[in-house]
């Protein structure tokens, strides 16, 4: 049954007695002490787009991974087209017509599109016949759904949008009738997201069932027929999309009324503390990612950098923090030009009065194997003790102070940092970087993977720093966060700063266009293809790129 059937979509309509494509009944799943899914019931109607929303860690991805056979549920039943199945692995799920497009693509980067598509669905021990057949099949899928792609392209040379297309084609090639998409727009430009939604509509017209996991309410409102809300491992409610509102969904997701606005007074910009001039930076593969960027950040202001992930923001941030050699240009902190030669530039940047909250705390900001007190001095270790010795008592004192001030829980100095929740880990990093009284604070993704309660706290701390006269540079892929915190917004696209906006007056559509390249030669949108009602989707932007996340330490 792994052999794909080119005419899948032409199958006769199934008997109308069961209008449900998928039913999940009483699903439970534990990971050690964590109860990731708790008695979940869910029914999904055939030929609809069904949204599943929830905060990070609500259990959406786990639930879908169970349906896809990647995990096995501890208890509960799965029915596909009314028939109960014990889905043992992904191959089984595929055989039942369930396909999944994962948030982090499951592609082999140095394979061709064609090789990726047939991987695991080969017809015979020799590749050639399968490849030839798949090539023909792809042409047909391209015709039917508008999924054009060069079958011989190497995947790593494709844009993320195209890679996602390969993932969808993979599922369709295997005869998927139900397609699960996990946070599919996270890495897409607005135009690509738009294109994706057109494809999803087309698939729905052809009778496919789509399950869309997202935490972006606008997408839910724009494309789904029904929406289910999850919170802390439980299924809260399933609603008709037309009967609900983003406000109601947000409240269901969080379990209380959410204040999405940040209270802050007007900025009082003083002298220039951070001055970046003609900066050119390349990534680990020597590809230039920051191209001639210049800007200034003054005392008492927050400058936000908006952009789709992967447009050079990470490299910009790391370069200013002294962790990446620059190919050209200068960075000055408080009037002093930083010298960034060698691989200990971060030390010199700190000495010059710069503090850095990195985008990925687990990869860079913390040593998860260290106790909390050890991480509380990471980067400032040289300030503890006079000679060679490390003044452990003083370090623990500092850590105690930080934990109290930032309400880190549990306030245990000796607990391994890995055992703190994401929000508390982030507070340790923030306390360490903010409490040193730096002149310049650069912050990447301050609230990524952090629960809502901590988000409010973190935002308030950042505002407090600004009001204390610090220069703050903020990089975030959450446009809402940039808009609510920043005093000025710079938009980055393809390594350039392509525009500046005032958060008070900036229109989301305008920002969205800037983020996708406003240069005439860099337009990636397909003009004139967007129907009126789809415009809100353009504002939808990105949360994290798999590239930013892929380097997690594996030891």
């Amino acid at each position, binding site marked *: 049954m792994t052999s794909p059937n080119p005419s899948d979509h032409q199958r006769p309509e199934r008997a109308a007695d069961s209008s449900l494509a998928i039913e999940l009944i009483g699903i439970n799943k534990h*990971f050690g002490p964590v109860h990731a899914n708790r008695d979940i019931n869910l029914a999904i109607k055939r030929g609809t787009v069904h949204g599943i929303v929830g905060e990070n860690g609500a259990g959406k991805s786990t639930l879908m991974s169970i349906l*896809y*056979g*990647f*995990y096995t549920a501890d208890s509960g039943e799965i029915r596909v087209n009314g028939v109960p199945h014990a889905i043992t*692995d*992904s*191959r*089984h*799920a*595929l055989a039942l017509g369930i396909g*999944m497009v*994962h948030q*982090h693509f*499951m*592609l*082999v*980067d*140095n*394979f061709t599109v064609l*090789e*990726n598509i*047939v*991987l*695991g*669905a*080969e017809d*015979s*021990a*020799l*590749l*050639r016949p*399968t490849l030839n057949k798949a090539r023909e099949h792809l042409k047909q899928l391209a015709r039917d759904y508008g999924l054009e792609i060069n079958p011989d392209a190497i995947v790593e040379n494709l844009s993320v949008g195209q890679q996602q297309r390969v993932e969808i084609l993979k599922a369709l090639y295997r005869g998927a009738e139900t397609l699960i998409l996990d946070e599919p727009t996270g890495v897409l430009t607005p135009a690509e997201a738009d294109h994706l939604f057109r494809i999803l509509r087309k698939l729905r017209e052809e009778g496919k069932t789509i399950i869309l996991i997202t935490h972006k309410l606008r997408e839910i409102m724009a494309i789904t027929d029904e929406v289910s809300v999850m919170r802390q491992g439980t299924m809260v409610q399933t609603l008709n999309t037309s009967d609900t509102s983003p406000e109601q969904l947000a409240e269901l997701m969080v379990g209380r009324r959410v204040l999405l606005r940040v209270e802050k007074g007007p900025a009082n910009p003083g002298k220039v503390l951070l001055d970046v001039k003609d900066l050119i930076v390349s990534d680990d593969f020597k590809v230039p990612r920051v191209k001639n960027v210049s800007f200034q950040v003054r005392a008492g202001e927050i400058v936000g950098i908006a952009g789709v992930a992967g447009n050079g923001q990470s490299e910009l941030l790391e370069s200013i923090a002294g962790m990446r050699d620059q190919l050209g240009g200068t960075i000055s902190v408080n009037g002093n030009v930083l010298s960034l030669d060698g691989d200990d530039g971060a030390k010199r940047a700190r000495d010059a009065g710069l503090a850095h909250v990195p985008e990925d705390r687990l990869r860079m900001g913390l040593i998860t194997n260290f106790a909390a007190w050890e991480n509380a001095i990471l980067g400032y270790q040289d300030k503890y003790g006079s000679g060679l010795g490390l003044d452990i008592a003083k370090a623990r004192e500092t850590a105690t102070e930080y934990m109290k001030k930032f309400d880190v829980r549990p306030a245990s100095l000796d607990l391994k940092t890995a055992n703190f929740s994401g929000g508390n880990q982030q507070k340790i990093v923030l306390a360490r970087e903010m409490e040193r009284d730096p002149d310049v604070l650069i912050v990447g993704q301050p609230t990524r993977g952090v629960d809502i309660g901590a988000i409010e706290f973190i935002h308030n701390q950042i505002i407090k720093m600004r009001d204390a006269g610090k220069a703050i540079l903020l990089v975030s892929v959450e446009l809402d966060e940039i808009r609510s915190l920043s005093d000025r917004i710079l938009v980055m696209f393809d390594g350039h700063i392509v525009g500046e906006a005032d958060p008070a007056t900036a229109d989301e559509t305008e920002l969205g266009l800037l983020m996708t390249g406003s240069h005439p030669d860099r337009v990636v949108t397909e003009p004139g293809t967007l129907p009126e009602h789809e415009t809100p989707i353009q504002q939808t932007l990105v949360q994290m790129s798999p590239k930013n996340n892929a380097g997690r330490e*594996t030891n």
Partner: protein
Amino acid sequence: MEQLIVDLTLILDSTTRLAVPLILACLAGLYSERAGIVDIGLEGKLLAGAFAAAATAAVTGSAWLGLLAGIGAALVFSGIHGLASINFKGNQAISGVALNFLAAGLTTFLGQSWFKRGGYTPQLSGDRRFNPITLPFANELREVPIIGQIYYELISGHNIITYFAFIAVPVTAWVLFRTRFGLRLRAVGENPKAIDTAGISVTRLRYQALIITAVLVGIGGAYLSIAQSAGFNNNMSAGRGYIALAALIFAKWRPGPALLVCLMFGFLDAVQFRIQGQEFPIIGEVPVQAIQALPYILTVILLAGFVGRAVAPKASGIPYTKER
């Protein structure tokens, strides 16, 4: 001119002989590393294979049974490596180093217990070894200048494992790039998640790779003790496993280039014997130790990337865990 060709033919002939264990070990490493498993234990497997082959051949009187035993020993070692690095998600470098020590200790210990010859196995002859095969018409063509000589000296007159090693190279290339198994093997070394989400067992695939690795390196070990030499002696692998690893890296994990690099090391080895004891202008006599160290020094230089950088299979060395 004639003499030059004869000389050259002879050097190339011994190049071939010396390259065989490297080629087999290198291809063996290629399978496991392409599947994402770093195999520093190649050295130990080579040694264990050599010992098992010689001991079995000595006892049973059959080179073929010796070969099977060599493969068997390598399989056991691969099994341990698999347990440590696939099932228990241990550190693959540590596991490999442990296996190398295990082979060094066990072969000498068992050799002494069984044969009481200070770690040597008994001298092998006749059917206890793989002897040279004379290809058809080799003797007839011997007198034909150049072509005949090359055929007689270089192509004909090797043992069966040598021919196997050279055939294994194109076969490996074919398996890797033309078959379903090869596709999956390459995929699991680059992105095991892609394999897992396609419903294929990562564990099974990696064990399959380790089995092929064991078969090839086991044959390589058998070559050392019952084809190239007439018996086992202590530490007879002499770092070939490490050199094979370096060759693999230099060949960027591709079979064709791997063959060339192994031949180059074989050539170096062959030339070694020629320079020993000879006086050279200016530098004089090269000390034998310098010649002995040469392959290792060259390997260090290759690894340092002074001759081009290599990118390993991405998942190489990382145990696969379903993420939570």
